[in-house]
Every structure is written in C-alpha cells, then in structure tokens.
C-alpha cells in the first residue's frame, strides 16, 4: 500500500498526551472529521 493523495491513510493507535491526560489516540476515532497529522523530529525542537 502506498501513501499518497486519494488513498487510505494508514490506521494507527498511539499513546498520547491530551489535555494533560495520557490516553490512547487512534486515527479511526476521527472518522467524520478532518485531521491534520504532524510528524516532527523531536521534542524541544521547532515543529
């Protein structure tokens, strides 16, 4: 499966910090909404 426009975004679930709490976040829970997904090299750097 290739990652490109018009194709399905790969599903994932990850541990996350959300509003000060730790929880599991999955891409699937955002179905029905637009998602802006950011990757970045490291905390304490620019984003």
């Amino acid at each position, binding site marked *: 499966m290739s990652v490109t426009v018009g194709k399905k975004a790969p599903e994932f679930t990850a541990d996350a910090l959300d509003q000060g709490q730790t929880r599991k976040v999955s891409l699937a829970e955002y179905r029905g909404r637009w998602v*802006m997904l*950011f990757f970045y090299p490291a905390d304490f750097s620019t984003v």
Partner: protein
Amino acid sequence: MSLDSVDTHRGWQEKELSQMVRGGALFPMLSDPGGRIGALYGVYDAEEGVDQRGRFLVDPMGLIQSMEILPDSLGRNIGEALRQLRALQHHQATGDYMPCGWEPGKPTLSKEQSRSGEIWKEWKARHAF
C-alpha cells in the same frame, strides 16, 4: 507525533510550549516509539532515528488529501496548511476546483472549466501570488 515518550511530551509542554501559547498544545501529542507509525507514512528516518517533518491532511472518510515533508531545518507554514484544508473542504462541499494561488474568497473553477483550455479567460499569472 515524534519518537518521544508521553512523559517527554509532558515535560516539553510544561517547560516550553506553555510559554508559547496559553495552556500549551491544544491537540493530542502522540508518541511513536521506534518510528513505527512514521514508517507507515514513509517519514521515518532510520539513520537519524527520527520521524521527518511530515504533514498529512486526512479527510472525513480517512483518505489522504494532501501531504508535505520538510527537512529538519525548515519549519512549516501553518497558513498554507490551513489554506489547503479550506480548499479541500470547499471542493468536497461544492465540487469546485481551486486554481493556482487560490485563497478563500477568490474565484473557483468548475471541473469542466478546469479542463477546458480556456482558463486563461479567468486566470492570469498575477493570481498565483
């Protein structure tokens, strides 16, 4: 999302991000140990052991509609990402096509116009900027 742990995210949030914006990051900060998710999206750099600066817009059906990867040295243009989001939302709502340089409020094209060979009647190079 980065390879950092949730605890490291929390430290960054408390020490730095909260100094940049009240309350810190307003969105979930995900942890990607080993770059497993970055690899799925083609942005994991195994030599450096980091996720590259990738940005993906995913639509309500779960389809990727826009993607960008920048080097570590170059920060993003959030305004451009939001412009793309608005254009994509406008397309899904109306079927319209957005020509080069489009911003909210500027003229759009029908699908037929976008393939007609007569875009020159509506669009000039100055509209790109």
